[in-house]
């Protein structure tokens, strides 16, 4: 587990978010990230597997073997580990605090005082 939350890079965070609901294989993660960020984050193969490599080492995600052998056409699938879930929660809490703060100071574009 990362020692501090700032260790989560934006890409790593997006990868974790993609795995919150269900396990996915590599390209599925890429498409999911692309859809959620409206094309703002486009992951190449190297960048994605670099992030996966690191998240695996830190125990935030792990390989799954759904029903037997891995699909050779799609590559391995990954699922979120409890530590990963905790990291996502912590990161989200921090982001929400930042957003609240920004909204209170009316820094956010389009924000209205409520």
């Amino acid at each position: 587990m990362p020692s501090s939350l700032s260790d989560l890079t934006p890409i790593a965070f997006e990868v974790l978010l993609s795995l919150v609901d269900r396990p996915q294989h590599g390209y599925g993660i890429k498409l999911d990230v692309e859809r959620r960020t409206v094309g703002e984050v486009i992951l190449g193969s190297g960048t994605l597997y670099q992030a996966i490599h690191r998240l695996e080492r830190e125990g935030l995600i792990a390989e799954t073997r759904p029903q037997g052998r891995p699909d050779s056409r799609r590559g391995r699938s990954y699922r979120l580990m409890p530590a990963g879930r905790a990291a996502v929660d912590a990161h989200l809490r921090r982001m929400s605090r930042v957003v609240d703060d920004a909204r209170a100071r009316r820094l956010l574009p389009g924000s209205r005082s409520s």
Partner: protein
Amino acid sequence: MDRSTRAFRALLCAYPPAFRDRYRDDLLAFFVQDRAHPRYGIGWRRPWRFWAATLRDLVVSAAAERKRHWRPMRSLRLSLDVRDAVRSLLATPGPTTVALMVLTLGIGMSSAIFAVVDNVALRGLPFDQADRLVSVAETMLPSGRPVTVAAPNYVQWTARQHSFEGLGASDFFVTVLEEGGRSERLLAARVTPNLFGLLRVTPALGRLLSPDDVRPGAEAVVLLSDGAWHRRFGADPGVIGRLIRFESGGRRIVGVMRPGFAYPVGSERISASEFWVPRAFTTAELGRSLGRNYSLSVVGRLKPGATIDQAAREMQQTRDVLAAAYPRWFVDRGIAVRPAIDAVVGATVRSWMLMLLGAVTLVLLIACVNVANVLLARATGRARELGIRAALGATRLDLLRGVLVESFILSAAGATLGLGITALGTAALRATLPADLPRLASVAVDGRVVLVAVLAGLVTGVLFGFVPAIRLSRPNLADTLHASGRASTASAPHQRLRAMLVMFEVSLAIVLLVGAGLFVSSFVRLLDRDLGFDPSHIVTISATVEPPVGVKERTPKTYPDFSDLVARVAAIPGVEHVGGIASGLPLSGNTRSNAFTVSWRPEPFDHDDAAFVHEASHGLLMAMRLQLIRGRWIADTDTPGAPGVVVLSQEAVRRYFGDRDPLGQVVQLEDRSRTVVGIVAGTQFRGPEAQPVPEAWVPLPDARQQSVDLVIRTQADVATLVPAVERAVFDTLPGAVIDAPVTLNALFAEFVAARRFNAFLIAVFGVLALTMVSVGIYGVMACVVDQQTREIGVRMALGARPAEVLRMMLGRATLVSGAGLLAGLAGAIALEQFIRGFLYQPRPYDPAVYLAVLSLTVAVSLIAALMPARRAAGVDPLVALRRD
């Protein structure tokens, strides 16, 4: 697995082994799926976009992964490699020096040419979103050549257009600056107040011009260039608000532009403006009742979303509407809308520049091949060393790396030294290229040029390094070690490879040489062109009688009489002949044409058929060595009081009279009846490449001109002659102004400057190519001789005579260069199609050029082969057999 997936799998070696092994299948699966992603678009661009994205990702992530796995020992190994390579290069100083010299020259020259080509032709305009800037020009019909714009047209375009954020216009005016007690004549630019805003430039100090500056009664203002601010005002920040005096009155400085800003963008002459003043239009200028005056260059910025095609359609419609309303203004004028950069860098200049770049690339390629060859020759000597290394357990990768590091060190050194050549070459090119080339003055070795030099070094390193590297990294252990004592033997495929490299080199050199031959021969033809007059030994001096100060319009106009002056100059010792001409000097670019009316045709000859009028004195015929065909030339008795006369050129006779006899005919020219009294051969007044035009010579006293050009034929030194001529001018025309003397040969040189440059530069390339080829052939033959010493020894022991050995060796050299010759010929024939457009009166497949190039190449290759061949013929059988 298809080809591109295999390619991608090969590229995965960029990742560290651990990462690669773990994720190879996943990365490949990702690759295959991603190929179907819609974001890469459709059509032929799709694979490019896909691969660009994939490679970018690969490079970035591989670099990051590698960095994570960085081990200091690794870098130590690399530095060991470097040390080894430097040592090994120094151990063979001969080949290393040759390779380094060739690389330095190749990289240096190509970067120098790139510096020029990039700055002149490739770079965009130095303004924000310059690709949205559009030039709108009027065109001459029917040729469609873009020309400047008339003021009323500009104003009405502005009012009617919807495609541009605005249209701005500029022109030049000559003014006299009266600053610090001195008067200085200079060229300044007038710009409409909106222009600099459209360019999106900001001033360094003060403000830009505003529409208020051209309101009636507004104070006269001026913007300074950064250069003028430094030179004339010592970069004083308090200069804003100061008044500077021009001959036309005071102007208040409102702003200083930033360093590097120049407008209009173009050749040194037109970019030199130090001042910009607001361009206001007078009612008279905007009226359409008077003469047509074209002076404006118009630039617009496209509105967001508007395309240049839309703008072109709109402007064409506007032109047609205006043409219907004011037909007189548009009988011979169309409209052209094109990117602003195209107006600065014409298509001719651009393709010329690209041709130069292509030629120098060929030189660089030959240099690569040459260095590859030299390295291969070196490698032969190292085969044993590498064999031993391999036997001791070095992997193929280790050997490959060692050899590649050597070539990269060579090319890095070549690029570094080459940058010195680039700096020298750029300065030389700037000085020799014709000064009217746009943006030539700002050519410099900058970041882009250095980058290109570095890239050229890297690419050449790969190109010439890989062939020997791959060959060497696969040493045949058994063979090399078995060959025990024999020092330097090259395997047969090894030699074949070198022979092929030389063939390739020869063929590239042929292409360059044929190109050089075509340029040089076309240049010689240009110089040989009969101008219709003889420009050598002619000095010209112009004398102008300025009207008295303050008298702008004199009524009735009187004009000075130059006949006394001409007579006085004719009497100066050393003057062989002198003539006066009042309509502009030949080759000076000044000409005047006018309608010509003959009795047998109701309408006058005009426009393309208008007569070019020259006013000349009696002596001009002899001074310029014009050729009188029939009748008589202008006489001293042809005074304004006498009946009007005209002498026509043959071209004029052909066009105006056809088969009729012109002599004695009465014609109308410039509101006067004249009798045709003589016919002369035509002259190339507008330069050797101009089309022949109809010319009409009339007596000098008829000239309604303030100035005359004295055309003096003399063998004497110009410096001694000029003071006497000046005295004659001041004696006969008090208060006259004299311009510096110019020789017609100097004017002619300016005309042919571009072609002279091409011929010279390409010839230099050709000579370099030939030199490198001879080095290559020498190297290969020397190696052949060295390797076959034993064989030759055996032959000679068996009774072969030295002459036979010599013939055999030369035969081999001929074979190698002969094969290159054929390939080169094919290449040259293909190339000729490209460069024909750059040639003056091209002769297709000029046999003289091709033959000369072929025989030159054969001769050079034989000479290069001669030395090794003689060594072979001189082999002592005893020594040879005892060797090894």
